[in-house]
């Protein structure tokens, strides 16, 4: 009879790692494209990347869905690839890096023109307590946006919100003034879905708190790091959101609405405002375009971060990176070999390398038009293969020196205008970005208990907004965070923070 045992098992391979052969580079990369096969060794892309780097590449492509598991198994084995895509500061990675499994690259990258970071803040964000264990993979540092039903604004004679007060007023009008003109009070303002993450995970709540001046995750108050939820601004922001919930300006099922239905609520006209990443506007625009290509430009408008009640604008940035490429110390034992590997990564992030990894071959699978990349007919099998392979190899792109490859040409005139609008307000918002000063800090207790503790806050916040608990209980829950281990996190964070600041 099978006993119900929840066990973690893995066989550790006892074969010793090959001594680094400088002619071949081994890599482990997540394979994102669901339907496409991993790039073949004799494919154009594979050969082109080999030609660019001057190395023979031996790549292990691992389906993204079990990359995390595979990484843990690989860490447990004695056979680490020389270069590994690490998808974030996962506990197993942090512990391994600190135990010496990966090269500490702090201060080493500036010697390479294409690995020298364009943004020290992001490099710091990607580090573990200020120690850089990988070349980070750059992402847009600013993505937050407010997306609004343009036709509803027009019908009610309203303007795009610029402040949180505007947000309230527009949401109120959307709820009460029948923006869809069907004579029924069946709409609401802001659409919020069940958020899968815990506290400080770019949920609409987190973004609104930052607008209100609360720290983004952690903040410095009187020279000490404090968790963002233990600030008056956090409470003020949530009182504001609660007011919106109570007045029916937010969908009442905000704690349970399937996040996959977020777009549908906007598209079908149940609600009229979404606070999320700006790229969602593109998804929504596509929905309207599929419905009616003639009028689709009339439905989606967007703007960046909103000004808070104090009149100061605080913008919610992203962490600016999505994992990093780390180099195994075991497979790349000497400094000379490390230099060799870094030179390869440097080449991959040069303009030529970035275009190859992100766009492919000019003239073969894309052409350049007004500085944008225009993909060629992807129904041609040869082009389709290249396009799929490019998508896979893009995972190897770092662009920590700045993104210099081409952006895909937006589908139509309106999309292009929307894209340029997005770039513009993202750029403008960067000046008022509230970074998380603790992003780089990994505290032991945080790793062990952080997610569990943050769940207390995330749940209490939702319960407060839903009216299940009052503000006194919310504050008591915040105290519970401290007593169940949060105080240790605060202490460890501050200890590390003092070291980094020096």
């Amino acid at each position, binding site marked *: *009879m*099978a*006993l*119900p*045992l*929840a*066990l*973690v*098992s*893995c066989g*550790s391979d006892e074969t010793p790692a090959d001594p680094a052969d400088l002619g071949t580079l081994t890599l482990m990369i997540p394979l994102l494209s669901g339907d496409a096969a991993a790039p073949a060794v004799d494919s154009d892309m594979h050969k082109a990347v080999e030609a660019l780097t001057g190395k023979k590449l031996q790549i292990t492509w691992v389906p993204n869905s079990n990359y995390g598991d595979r990484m*843990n*198994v690989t*860490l*447990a084995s004695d056979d680490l690839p020389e270069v590994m895509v690490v998808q974030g500061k*996962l*506990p*197993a990675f942090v*512990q*391994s890096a600190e*135990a010496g*499994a990966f090269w500490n690259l702090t201060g080493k990258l500036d010697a390479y023109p294409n690995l020298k970071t364009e943004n020290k803040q992001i490099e710091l964000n990607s580090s573990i307590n200020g120690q850089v264990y990988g070349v980070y993979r750059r992402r847009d540092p600013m993505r937050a946006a407010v997306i609004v039903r343009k036709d509803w604004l027009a019908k009610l004679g309203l303007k795009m919100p610029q402040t949180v007060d505007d947000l309230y007023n527009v949401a109120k009008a959307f709820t009460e003034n029948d923006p869809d003109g069907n004579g029924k009070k069946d709409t609401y303002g802001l659409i919020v879905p*069940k958020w899968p993450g815990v506290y400080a995970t770019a949920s609409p709540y987190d973004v609104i708190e930052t607008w209100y001046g609360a720290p983004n995750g952690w903040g410095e108050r009187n020279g000490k790091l404090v968790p963002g939820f233990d600030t008056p601004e956090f409470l003020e922001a949530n009182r504001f959101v609660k007011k919106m919930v109570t007045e029916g300006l937010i969908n*009442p*099922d905000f*704690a*349970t609405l*399937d996040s996959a239905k977020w777009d549908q609520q906007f598209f079908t006209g149940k609600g009229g405002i979404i606070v999320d990443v700006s790229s969602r506007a593109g998804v929504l625009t596509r929905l309207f375009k599929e419905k009616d290509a003639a009028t689709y430009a009339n439905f989606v408008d967007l703007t960046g971060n909103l000004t808070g009640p104090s009149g100061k604008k605080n913008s919610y940035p992203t962490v600016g990176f999505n994992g990093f490429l780390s180099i195994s110390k075991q497979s790349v034992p000497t400094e000379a070999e490390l230099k060799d590997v870094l030179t390869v990564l440097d080449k991959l992030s040069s303009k030529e390398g970035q275009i190859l990894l992100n766009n492919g071959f000019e003239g073969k699978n894309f052409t350049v038009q007004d500085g944008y990349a225009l993909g060629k007919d992807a129904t041609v099998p040869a082009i389709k293969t290249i396009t799929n392979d490019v998508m896979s190899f893009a995972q190897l792109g770092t662009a920590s020196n700045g993104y210099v490859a081409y952006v895909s040409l937006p589908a139509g005139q309106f999309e292009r205008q929307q894209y340029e609008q997005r770039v513009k307000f993202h750029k403008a918002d960067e000046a008022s970005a509230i970074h998380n000063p603790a992003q780089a800090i990994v505290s032991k207790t945080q*790793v*062990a*208990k*952080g*997610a*569990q503790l943050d*769940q207390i806050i*995330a*749940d209490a*916040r*939702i*319960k407060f907004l*839903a009216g*299940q608990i009052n503000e006194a209980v919310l504050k008591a829950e915040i105290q519970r965070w401290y007593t*169940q281990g949060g105080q240790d996190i605060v202490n460890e964070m501050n200890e590390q923070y003092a070291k980094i600041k020096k």
Partner: protein
Amino acid sequence: MGKARLSTRLIRYRWLLVLLLPGLAYFVVFKYAPMYGVTIAFQDYLPFLGFDGSPWVGFKHFETLFSSPDFPRVLGNTLILALLNAVFVFPAPIVVALMLNELRVSILKRAIQSAIYIPYFLSWTIVAALTYLLFALDTGPITVLMNDLFGERFDFLADPDWFRPLVILQTLWKEVGWGTIIYLAALAGVDSNLYEAARIDGASRWKQMWHVTLPGIRSTIIVMAILQAGNLLDSKFEQIYLLTNSLNRSVAEVFDTYVYFLGITQGAYSYSTAVGLFKAVVGVALIYGVNWLARRFGHSGLF
């Protein structure tokens, strides 16, 4: 028993023993060998350091578990669900099987059987999606119906009070049909002479069921009860996980979701293995306990 006799027997039954090998290999490779991994419950396991290199910490993780403020809540939630399962879900297939057994139109009986098997083949993800559709706040058909019937505003998906009824309903809908199979098979095995004798003695349908049918399948029911006892602390992870949200987590968190949350998302492998091991030990104890009870009351147990 002499050596010679053993070897003769080995030789005589050699082909049967060969047939045993694949099954034995399955258990060794997939069930017993991985048990070595249990050792990490007593270590501060780090994948990078491996089973051999990770430091030993004795019962530290068990102490943390039993002194954790989460422990009473998670244990309570798990036990309440287990109890509800034992009370509502365990007898349901027996009742349905008895009802089907009383049907005399065989085509109807078979049609109903097939219809109630189908949900078993749907994944929990689909069941959860259906639940979300049917019970959505203000828009789900069942929510609308209940709102109209009782004049209240039901929030099935978020209200902690509705979490357990929903879980039990889902389980009943999905698994009762499948569960009837074994009982229907047992019912088919009841000697029809006994019914005839009962009828001659003037027993009504109800009395026949009570005095012939139920005693006839009693041993099956007991075996099923013992088997289920071992799984008492097992909740169906996907089912619970998919139905959990911030508002009902206080009643929804059970050992299985807790282990997932700690072990997979936070990388606390040792701690979550300790939790899993605790669960398994309780499971084994329960199997022996129920088996002992069954024998105590004069029935043959499982072993």
